[in-house]
């Protein structure tokens, strides 16, 4: 009894809370680093003048046009120190503050088409999630099932054929899955619309094809990855014990191995969840889904630097959230793990 209740639950919770707070604090310098990096990349490597010249056409551009372009976007301020301004505005009336620091409070400014980026992001998150979440959940389920199947038949011809198939599937370009899937399902079989999107329940018919293709394209590498994890787990002593006491292989795999493999699985999986918000660049642009992925791709093609900068920052925030979530998920999956 004494051993089981040690350390006391309240103390454990306190330690965990302290750990999470420390991790949150640790995230701050990293976010500042990301922020400074994007600032350096977008404003120091190339001056706003260069960007204006690039966007307006390198030749035949007047200084007035450059000035106008910069003023429209608020790039006509000094980079980090505004000597002309008074008081605190010396720091705040600069590009660093107006364009980079303000991203911390969710102010991303306006895109080149004049729309508010933060608003655009919140409306586009829905379609991105509608496609990313089913793909993620289904993909996880399919890959783990296949991996368990291969491990169940390990060292047989089936296992070997499965691994060969996995390697072959992961050697195929993701573009091929999308292009081939669209061609086969939409053009030849006429089972689903080739691309497009609509809100509400109608969305389902547009989502089926991209989700299936997304799951299918990911099977190869993830099945192999989980198979390796399970195989590593299966050599442990507790598995031998479980077999020795007469448990059937099925029970050993599903009850013991699967549960114990949760930690390595969680390491790879949880960190991805927050980044699902970002959507997939390829899938969304091929299927014409108005999510964040296609937003990013359009911004890259139109060289809309403000949007790309915002997406870089949001992506890093979500990734850091994912790292934190991974740590917390360990304690849920395995009570032995203590955060301190």
């Amino acid at each position, binding site marked *: 009894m004494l051993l089981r209740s040690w350390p006391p639950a309240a103390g454990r919770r306190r330690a965990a809370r302290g750990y999470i707070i420390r991790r949150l604090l640790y995230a701050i*310098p*990293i976010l500042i*680093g*990301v922020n400074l*990096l*994007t600032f350096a*990349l*977008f404003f120091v*490597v*190339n001056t706003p003048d*260069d*960007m204006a*010249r*690039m966007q307006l056409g*390198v030749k035949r551009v007047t200084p007035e046009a450059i000035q106008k372009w910069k003023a429209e976007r608020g790039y006509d301020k000094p980079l980090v120190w505004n000597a002309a301004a008074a008081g605190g505005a010396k720091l705040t009336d600069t590009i660093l503050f107006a364009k980079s620091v303000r991203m911390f409070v969710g102010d991303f400014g306006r895109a080149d088409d004049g729309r508010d980026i933060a608003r655009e992001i919140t409306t586009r998150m829905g379609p991105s999630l509608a496609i990313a979440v089913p793909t993620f959940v289904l993909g996880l389920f399919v890959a783990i099932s296949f991996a368990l199947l291969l491990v169940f038949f390990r060292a047989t011809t089936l296992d070997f054929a499965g691994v060969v198939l996995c*390697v*072959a599937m*992961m*050697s*195929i*370009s*993701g*573009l*091929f899955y999308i*292009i081939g899937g*669209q*061609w086969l399902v939409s*053009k030849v079989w006429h089972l689903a619309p080739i691309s497009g999107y609509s809100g509400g329940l109608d969305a389902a018919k547009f989502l089926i094809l991209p989700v299936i293709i997304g799951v299918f394209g990911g099977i190869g590498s993830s099945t192999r990855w989980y198979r390796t994890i399970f*195989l590593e787990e299966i050599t442990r002593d507790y598995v031998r014990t479980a077999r020795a006491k007469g448990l059937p292989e099925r029970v050993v795999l599903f009850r013991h191995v699967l549960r114990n493999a949760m930690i390595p699985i969680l390491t790879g999986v949880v960190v991805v969840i927050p*980044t699902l918000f*970002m959507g997939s*660049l*390829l899938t969304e642009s091929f299927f014409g889904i108005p999510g964040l992925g296609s937003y*990013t*791709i359009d911004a*890259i*093609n139109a*060289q809309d*630097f403000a949007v*790309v*900068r915002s*997406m*870089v920052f949001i*992506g*890093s925030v979500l*990734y*850091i959230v994912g*790292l934190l979530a991974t740590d917390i998920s360990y304690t849920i999956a395995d009570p032995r793990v203590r955060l301190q």
Partner: protein
Amino acid sequence: MIQPVLLWSDALLFVLIAAIVALALWARRQEPLRAAWGRVLKDGVAMAAATVLAAFIVVGLLDSLHYRARLDAKPGEPVRYAVEVNSALDALLSDLRQRSEKTYSAPLATHLYAKEALGDSAQRDFPRLRHGGTHLGADLSGHEFDVAMRVSRGCAGGVALWLVLAALWCRHKRISLVATLKVGAGGTATGAVFITLLAIFLLLGIAISLGGGYHVFGTDKVGQDVLYLSLKSIRTGLLIGTLTTLVMLPLAVLLGILAGYVGGWVDDVIQYLYTTLSSIPGVLLIAAAVLMMQVIIDTHPDWFATSAERADARLLALCLILGMTSWTGVARLLRAETLKLRELEFVQAAQAFGVGRFAIMRRHILPNLMHIVLIALVMDFSGLVLAEAVLSYVGVGVDPSTISFGTMINTARMELAREPMVWWSLAAAFGFMFALVLAANLFADAVRDAFDPRSSA
């Protein structure tokens, strides 16, 4: 006759090959390394994959010997060279390169894809190709028969070449052909190599024989031969797959070892650095960096003498950017391994003898990390080849004038919507890419199994 041109990427590629040769010579003298490579040599699948990779590398290397042809000039005039930079591969394939059609044509076709008004008649019909199937004459008699003949002739040529090679090998080793195909000397999987070579020679023979009279994979929108484009893409893929890792390695190794061995604030700074970099989603960081690079290249057109140089600079910059975003993973692995090594007896002994820090890192830590570096090198390769295609599609890949799998796919994907479908350039790009990446994956797996002490399976 010609003026050799050394592009930066060529130079780096040759440096890389020299480094690999030097490392191979060094590894021959190291017992554990020799044993590990021995395991790779005995693996039939790995050797077959290595043979395919070698074929790709030969094409890539031929394509890296650049030159500018000398222009015809009257005697007495100064020698002038063509603006266009060509490679040895271009010279070998000058037939394919120059026999361009007007627009699309299907593989082995004799007529153009699109109808045109013929002569002065109002009737529109498919015009004959300028180069594909011209030897058949006006009535196209025996098109199928001619194709079949050429295929069988190509097969015969391939088999003949293979038999010569196999015979030479058997004489050299003084064993019979059957023995070679079973298991080679010292357990080396020569059988797998020779069977793969047979397949490669057969394909080569067929391609040469058919390519003499037809466009084997058809032509693309501006009438270029798709086979030629596919072969030219190989160099870009190889460069991205290898140079990226090469440019990132020195940094990753240095920082990883420093963080692990020195510890303290150095460790903190380096960890902060790579955590920050790795927390930015890869594609977005690459996109941002490539956008900025485009601005630099576009605003400084005077830096590059020829368009080949500009495309080359962009390719290198892409490698650099990809490398900058991917060194973090390797640095992390190296740091963890260094932490372990630091506590081992031989390092402790060296410290007790008063060996300097940097000497320990160089003499005792670095050689024991080489397997991680090697595994990272081969494992990253296939992912990078695939990434190039995706990045080129997104618009942040290689220069649009550089021939690569990505640009081929990008220009070809719109053609699927045409009726009848133009599928051949996509199929060729995906097919070549699949062969390259599959071979790289299989080879990488074998290398990892042989070198990673943890994977005993």
